[in-house]
């Protein structure tokens, strides 16, 4: 019997594109959405991996809550026909407080969706405007309350730090407003100024407003403050940007970092299975197009991925898991690199695990690049 897989579905539609976003997403009318869902259904029915057991499902975007809730239900049904989705599977959906309604939440819950990931980004309305978000903090509170009423017991909120004009105190205010509501899970991302976004023109290397971004020192101060606030509120940091109350870690995402195979459906969705990683074209009619990316992973790639992805987790990489998978120890393969970064205080050996120290997390790329 082959190991279980994780399933991902990409819904590339948004009411309006946010100023910092470089994902494949765009506004669309109803007909476009209908056609797209047909494309996804067809892709699922064509999957050569049909019949496998699935341990999680994730509807991401874009904004999955923008399409008719019946579309989500149909796709989920189709997945249930094609795969053996486990009883206890984690089934998540991303929602935007500006596009979700009580009816949609009720339908999602009824269809078996167990986890909501709400895109909040900030509790400061002025900041939300700057980011190009279509909702207010009030809208978020409303969505959150309805979701609880409809029976969602696992809710996550996404936030961004390092925003233009932000101070550590300002961010802490925003975070505390959210913590008081008591979501089970929080993702706190550092803002990345991506090319080909409106933010890049404003805040990129030659942007006129670059000075509004907090300095590296301030940004880290904010991040470290967030770590402390979340910890004292009972959340455990389990990945570079993710925090959860015990037992509420996102299993689907943990799969990405621990090498669980996954199948992605929809435009720009990536799959990783049987030693290959491939990504659909960035186009709503992706089925007729070649893959955007396709990688065949040899043992060396698999080993380095186990390290660079695994080190994202605060638990680190398990020595015994590495040995079980590759028949040799981490130290045999990466001894010099490990030694170097342990001595520089960026890595630590903790019993059977190798992990990044708190400073190592801040400078993770420097360490990870050496594992490639």
């Amino acid at each position, binding site marked *: 019997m082959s190991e279980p897989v994780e399933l991902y579905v990409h819904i590339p539609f948004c009411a309006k594109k946010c100023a910092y976003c470089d994902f494949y997403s765009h506004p669309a009318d109803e007909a476009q959405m209908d056609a797209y869902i047909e494309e996804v259904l067809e892709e699922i029915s064509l999957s050569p991996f049909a019949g496998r057991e699935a341990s999680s499902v994730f509807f991401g975007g874009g904004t999955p809550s923008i399409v008719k809730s019946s579309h989500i239900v149909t796709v989920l049904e189709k997945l249930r026909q094609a795969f053996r989705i486990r009883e206890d599977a984690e089934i998540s959906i991303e929602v935007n407080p500006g596009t979700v309604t009580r009816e949609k939440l009720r339908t999602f819950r009824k269809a078996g969706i167990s986890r909501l990931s709400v895109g909040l980004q900030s509790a400061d309305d002025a900041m939300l405007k700057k980011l190009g978000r279509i909702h207010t903090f009030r809208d978020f509170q409303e969505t959150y309350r309805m979701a609880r009423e409809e029976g969602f017991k696992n809710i996550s909120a996404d936030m961004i730090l390092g925003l233009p004009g932000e101070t550590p105190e300002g961010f802490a205010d925003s975070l505390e407003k959210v913590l008081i509501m008591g979501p089970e899970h929080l993702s706190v991302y550092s803002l990345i100024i991506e090319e080909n976004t409106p933010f890049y023109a404003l805040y990129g290397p030659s942007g006129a407003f670059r000075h509004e971004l907090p300095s590296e020192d301030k940004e880290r101060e904010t991040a470290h403050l967030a770590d402390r606030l979340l910890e004292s509120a009972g959340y455990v940091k389990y990945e570079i*940007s993710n925090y959860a109350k015990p037992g509420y870690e996102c299993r689907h995402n943990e799969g990405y970092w621990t090498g669980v195979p996954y199948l992605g459906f929809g435009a720009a969705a990536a799959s990783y299975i049987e030693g290959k990683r491939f990504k659909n074209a960035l186009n709503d009619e992706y089925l007729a197009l070649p893959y955007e990316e396709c990688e065949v992973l040899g043992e060396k790639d698999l080993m380095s991925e186990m390290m660079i992805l695994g080190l994202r987790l605060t638990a680190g990489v398990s020595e015994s898991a590495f040995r079980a998978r590759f028949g040799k120890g981490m130290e045999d393969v990466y001894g010099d690199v490990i030694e170097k970064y342990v001595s520089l205080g960026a890595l630590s050996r903790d019993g059977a695990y190798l992990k990044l120290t708190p400073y190592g997390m801040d400078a993770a790329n420097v360490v990870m690049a050496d594992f490639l």
Partner: protein
Amino acid sequence: MAQYDRSRIRNFCIIAHIDHGKSTLADRIIEMTGLLTHREMQAQVLDNMDLERERGITIKAQAVRTVYRAQDGNEYILNLIDTPGHVDFNYEVSRSLAACDGAVLVVDAAQGIEAQTLANVYMALDHDLEVFPVINKIDLPSADPEGVAHEIEDVIGIEAMDAPRISAKNGTNCEAVLEEIVKKIPPPKGDESAPLKALIFDSVYDSYKGVIVFMRVMDGEVRPGMRVRMMATGAEADVVETGYFGAGQFIPCEGLSAGMVGYLTASIKNVTDTRVGDTVTDAKRPAAEPLPGYKKVNPMVYCGLYPADGAHYSDLRDALEKLKLNDASLFFEPENSVALGFGYRCGFLGLLHLEIIEERLEREYNLDLVTTAPSVVYRIYKTNGEMVELTNPTNMPSPAEIDYMEEPVVAAEIIVTSEYIGAIMDLCQERRGVYKSIEYIEAKRAILKYDLPLNEIIYDFYDALKSRSRGYASFDYELSGYVRSELVKLDILVNHEEIDALSFVVFAGNAYERGRRMCEKLKENIPRHLFEIPIQAAIGSKIIARETVKAVRKDVLAKCYGGDITRKKMLLEKQKEGKKRMRTFGNVEIPQDAFMSVLKLDET
């Protein structure tokens, strides 16, 4: 052997400031005398190397023979000897001039006389050449041929009112130049029956024929089968072939006699046996005395060349050996650096020569190089009475052993328009120049004369001169000797470790400033590490400057999920690629560029 009427031979060169049109005029002459059709001409036939074409300068001397039917109805053999166009190759220029009987002086009608114009004219006059001027680029809107003609008469003192006004680019009036060559340049002198004396003005290495010696026969004759001797090096060889220069090809002939320009081959393996300026004579009936003017040129600038990847050490050696086949003035010997591993200490005629060799090694031999700071040759007078020449700062004796030191100085001539005189004088002052004189060559332009230490001009003097004069200053110099100077060795420490390859010798009064700027520049070029890196400049054990590369504060990808693992991995790959181009010292990685960038410390 075909009989030549020596009165129908003209041996000449074209002299000009850079970009005044020397090579373009040479091309027109070759084209007009029918040696090549326009279509066959690769622009600028005489500049063979890609580098020469790109930089617009001639690096090696070349020669070409053409036949011209003059207006008097006679056919003349014109031997054009193209001279290198840079001060680094002054000695080669002087030998090329010595092979000629006259020179065509090309002056840009818009720019007028420049520093190299003067330097070349004086050198030509020193060799008793008949010099006549040609005013080029009359097609330019800003051309002022009358003004330039006056300038030539006033400044150089040669007749210029009737100088041909031409556009070598368009071919306008170039025929007049050929007529002038025939009328004004005297035919070669010489005694065909005297023992052979031929002046070597260049040589190239050919893998089939061995060394091809370029020469001008002064007396006697040379033909295949003859045993010849190089009078300075003593090397002897049997002549296999003699010939003259077609356009881009060698055309064998039965022999060469007094007055003729051509080449010989004699299965000579090494260009160091056939040094520029040496005299070729008949081994059986040698000339009593060699031709005057021979000297062995010594490198003026040294630097260390290291392969970026230590594994390519032997490739570097092979490449240097190959370049040396054609370049007797290139010097190299193995050296070993703690920082850079195995490499070569190389000596060059000047900074341009250095850059050319470096570029050729990188382009033609595909080598990735790390170059250490160029250094001039210092003389160290030790307390024990010994004098040593220092070509590598690492070998500097301890201060206690040094009585005093001397550094080379040059006599520099700078021609500049009056509004920039102040700026240029400031520059010379900053570079420790000793003012000699100023002389106006016309209302708005002057010749400034300074004595300048060579080590002040080998880095970036030329760039600074151009930027401070907005391109209006021109510059020429020659080595004038050694003077006593206060010099110290400056060491650079990165993370408390001395990087030997970055050490250099500097005038004591500039040490602080130079050390500070080195540290600043290195700070810009060394990427942040996971720890703080102090960069220090030190004289002996005394730290005189310090900068700090702060530790990485943040370098992390906040998001990494299934859909973007491939892309995020590519970002990390890129980061790793960057690291590969670095050298590791202790636990600090220093990019190769850092070594070069600290050599360019000026405002630019």
